[in-house]
């Protein structure tokens, strides 16, 4: 049997990799992918705890996170395409329309 803490540490590593990607990369598409990765690592944590405490609420919550992630990626990519029509770039440094 694999201890739950191993799953938690794996999830922490994946979350950190995703966070480093969000902070370090400049391509908005890759940033969206890294956000998805972070959401998934949290899902892994929730499922590990659902197993640990023998409680299905964690898995129900993961289901909701998946729904929100699907909505988030659809709207995020739509914003990206709308901005690409405007300025022909996906570089996050050039996407500063609402910066003052």
């Amino acid at each position, binding site marked *: 049997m*694999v201890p739950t803490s191993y799953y938690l540490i794996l999830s922490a590593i994946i979350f*950190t990799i995703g966070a480093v990607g969000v902070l370090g990369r400049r391509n908005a598409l890759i940033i969206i992918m890294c956000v998805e990765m972070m959401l998934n690592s949290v899902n892994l944590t929730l*499922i590990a705890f659902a197993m640990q405490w023998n409680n299905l609420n964690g*898995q129900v919550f993961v*289901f*909701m996170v*998946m729904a929100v992630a699907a909505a988030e990626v659809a*709207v995020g990519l739509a914003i990206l395409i709308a901005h*690409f029509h405007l300025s022909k770039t996906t570089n996050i440094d050039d996407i500063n329309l609402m910066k003052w």
Partner: protein
Amino acid sequence: MDFAMIFFILVGALSVATAVGVVTSKVAVHSALFLLVHFATLAILYVTLNAQFLAATQIIVYAGGIVILILFVIMLIGSAPLETRAGYRSWVPYAGLALGVLMLAGMAMTILQMPLTPLDPNANQGGAPIIMGIELYSQNILLVQLAAVLLLVALIGALLLARRPKNEESPISNL
């Protein structure tokens, strides 16, 4: 070390490797393909945690939906490598890496201090589609409805955001 442990280490290593691939690869399409493998490995880990329904959902929603959507957008707007373009604040990735190491250290400390009782191998029978279905559609029916409304609103919002401006001619009419 038993079989479950070796399996976990193999799949976990593949998962971390593909996650690193997503972050480090220069071409956006490669990132998306690494992401696909990453989601598949996570689905395998969900099965080892007795969450069979969520493993199937993971494959359908993430690998079948989100990665395909991302690939479509990459092909729509092109994926020229951006970072190679001259000296765009080159210290930012290193600052991100340092912050990441800090965060990982904090999370690892918290996890190792947490009192986790060893789990009973035959305690949790949950996560099979039947059990999850009963759980979702009896106690959590409001959540399912809310998710439906959320997805509908996101669909309409995405349509509105991504459509062409009215004054711009459609490329199809020029053919």
